[in-house]
């Protein structure tokens, strides 16, 4: 039995036994190589699940839908390791309760897809995998190229990219970490971030977004894929994540009991910047 059949029947069993109220997985997409999220509430619906190498989206973002988990019932979700990493971060930020999430884990290696052992978040230990994780070669190459630029060149690079931004906020909608009920860009008293899509406003939005994800990004790449104008958002997140590791030896999502890196301190933190 392939993994797709295995998870179909497991999802059906979870639903028919009443253990979970909902299974979030993938269904057929609009074209043969695309998959779209499928929300199964009955065992019959669970038969429509598809699981193959095209299932690359991070479905954990649906877990923070307002009100979804407030009834205390459980939800099962198909997750790759980056999605499991997101769940760790969401638990440590009190947005999820560990026992409410049943994880149907899988990993994709080239075209091969394998099932992951364990169903509860505590069954997964991601520490080493995350620490040694490197982004895809094309991201890494591009990151190195930007690193070698001088500040003026780098500014021009990002200016060119950010000027394309149409402020559709797809990056925000797709990101599991953007769970605020009211995003800072939607605050208009006072309006810190300009909503029109001119270069200044676009810079403001993208820099605020980068800072809000520093030390929180699970590197799933969803924002990058979602962007309709192809801004390489992954590069920003990658650079911020690197900064946080170098400065604080902190890698987001290693486990679900981390304290937020920018809001916590250790007694031996350097204080050289404080006068």
């Amino acid at each position, binding site marked *: 039995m392939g993994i797709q059949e295995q998870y179909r029947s497991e999802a059906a069993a979870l639903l028919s036994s009443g253990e979970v109220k909902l299974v979030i997985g993938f269904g057929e997409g609009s074209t043969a190589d695309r998959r779209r999220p499928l929300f199964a509430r009955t065992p019959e619906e669970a038969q429509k699940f598809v699981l193959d190498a095209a299932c690359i989206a991070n479905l954990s973002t649906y877990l923070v839908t307002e009100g979804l988990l407030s009834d205390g019932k459980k939800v099962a979700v198909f997750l790759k390791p980056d999605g499991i990493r997101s769940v760790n971060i969401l638990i440590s930020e009190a947005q999820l309760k560990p026992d409410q999430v049943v994880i149907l884990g899988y990993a994709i290696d080239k075209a091969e897809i394998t099932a992951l052992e364990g169903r509860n978040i505590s069954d997964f230990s991601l520490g080493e995998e995350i620490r040694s994780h490197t982004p895809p070669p094309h991201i890494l190459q591009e990151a190195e190229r930007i690193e070698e630029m001088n500040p003026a060149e780098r500014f021009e690079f990002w200016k060119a990219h950010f000027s394309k931004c149409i402020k559709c906020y797809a990056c925000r909608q797709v990101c599991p970490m953007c769970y605020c009920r009211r995003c800072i860009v939607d*605050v208009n008293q006072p*309006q810190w971030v300009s909503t029109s899509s001119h270069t200044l406003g676009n810079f403001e939005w993208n820099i605020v977004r980068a800072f809000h994800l520093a030390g929180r990004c699970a590197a799933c790449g969803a924002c990058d894929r979602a962007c309709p104008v192809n801004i390489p958002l992954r590069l920003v997140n990658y650079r911020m994540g690197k900064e946080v590791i170098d400065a604080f030896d902190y890698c987001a999502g290693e486990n679900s009991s981390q304290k937020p890196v920018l809001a916590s301190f250790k007694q031996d933190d350097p204080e050289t910047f404080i006068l």
Partner: protein
Amino acid sequence: MAKIGVFVCHCGENIASMVDTGTLVKAMSDHPGVAICNEYKYFCSDPGQETVKRAIREHNLTGVVVAACSPRMHETTFRKACAEAGLNPYMLELANIREQCSWVHSEKNQATSKAIEITRSLVEKVKRNNELKPISVPVTRRALVIGGGIAGIQAALDIAGAGREVVLVEREPSIGGHMSQLSETFPTLDCSQCILTPRMVEAIQHPKITVMTYSEVEEVEGYIGNFTAKIRKKARYVDMSKCTGCGDCIQKCPVKKIPSEFECGLGKRTAIYTPFAQAVPNVPVIDKSRCTYFKNGKCKICEKSCQIDAIDFEQQESVETFEFGAIVVATGFQIQDTSVYGEYGYGKYKDVITGLHFERLASASGPTAGKIQRPSDGKEPETVVFIQCAGSRDPSKGVKYCSKICCMYTAKHAMLYTHKHHGSNSKIFYMDIRAAGKGYDEFTRRAIEEDGADYLRGRVSKVFEENGKLIVRGVDTLLGKPVEVAADMVVLATAMTPQPDAKQFAKRIGIGYDEYGFYNEAHLKLRPVETAKAGIYLCGACQSPKDIPDSVAQASAAAAKVLGLFSREQLEREPVVAAVGETTCAGCWGCVYACPYNAIEKKDITDRNGNLIKQVASVNPGLCQGCGTCVTFCRSNSIDLAGFTEKQIFAEVMAL
């Protein structure tokens, strides 16, 4: 409609010489919402304040901006003036055009336009100020004094003398601190223990003072008027309520050869011991690391010798929690490890000792009963060389600062030595003689003129042994010649340093420290006994090297500050506190971790049937210090700080 009064201060020439105040006044008069704009030489003066008050009444002002110095200087002054004229004091803003403008610029036109920008941005802010009312918080009128040396004892006695409860915590088995180790004290040569022990006894007998020895402050939480401290009482293995201090156990203890810390290793102690004869409380402790029973499981001779069963090998350490309104830190000092000076032979030659060793040799209660004897062979030394600044004022190997007491105690040592051993010969190598203090210079003169102390101005390069003598090689810079002295003993005036754990302790209780680990006062000149953390005060050598008179004076000053705080049941606090917008709070608890004052709690939001809808952050206004850390952390902008709201800050920025 806003009616703002803008008052431009010249501060004599401080502002007016660099900022064209006429232009500033004109620019502000034309600014929307400004009802009146004046300039004056000194607005902080009485007539200046009167002008502000009159303007508030005559023009019915809704807000006031004083363009002058830093709010740290005169915010209180003008808030009071506003209140007296019937305006809420928080409707005032100070535009700092002195420290942040006139003092730091040298081009008048540019400085003037900057002053206009600063003032304009504060006008825009004050238009959005809200009327605030001070917060009242209760004060727990009990003080914690940390450290039972002379400074701590004095502070405790003064606070208790005014009728307030004090808990005095000391980590050693007895109170007394370094002063109990000293022989005689300068400049009067009265015996240190003779003047100290009455204070120690007074402290332990005082009905308002709880003395906790062999105890350490583990954790301090809270804020001025409302601290909670956890105090760890180490296991003494002796029941304090039973022990009579007869000393039978000490005499019977078979482990007798432990170098005594109190005697600086010159004497020995047992495993069950009191550090010195006049210890307060006179209850021994068992040194677990040295006790035969704790090491091998056999012995208990002390238990057998105790006639009232006061020895308790099962005793456990305990943690007690107290509430305090104020804390006095008097944790004292240590002496520097002099072994960094290999050339002086400390640690290599037994007869090269520190000043504190000499105190024990000269002390009547010391290991030699007050006879000056060489540690190596017990002979009375004929020639003693004293080396001053053996660590102090030496940026390369020692410490940069002056330890302040060494000039005086070295003169005292030379004197005591002459008094105890007539015809002896003391030579003192010094850099300068720093004898500032009442009766101090007379004292050093007396050492030179009456007691024959031989002062040589210069540094010592090397001490080495030759034919049973310590050869001290140095230079006499007044003669410009190298000198060599054959000495029997060498005394190093070692530097005073902070306690080795001073920095960790400061972090634990939340006070600042300098590069060495001495604790920072709020203002070196004007607030010398306060720390930057309200409600925590300093005294004694934990702040900087100090002699006994200075430590005692500072202790009484700290006590006066504590008693001032305790004079009222309620404390008025600034209403500059944060508040959470509950509708948008996502409950990520970042602010809870970020808050340095533990002022943010989790709050349940329930429906009318009591079902939990969500949890949000909630700020306790009594604990909040208004630092704004939570505001900067909150990603959804759900926290706002009264007096510095997002709207105010935004208006300020946009006005630039």
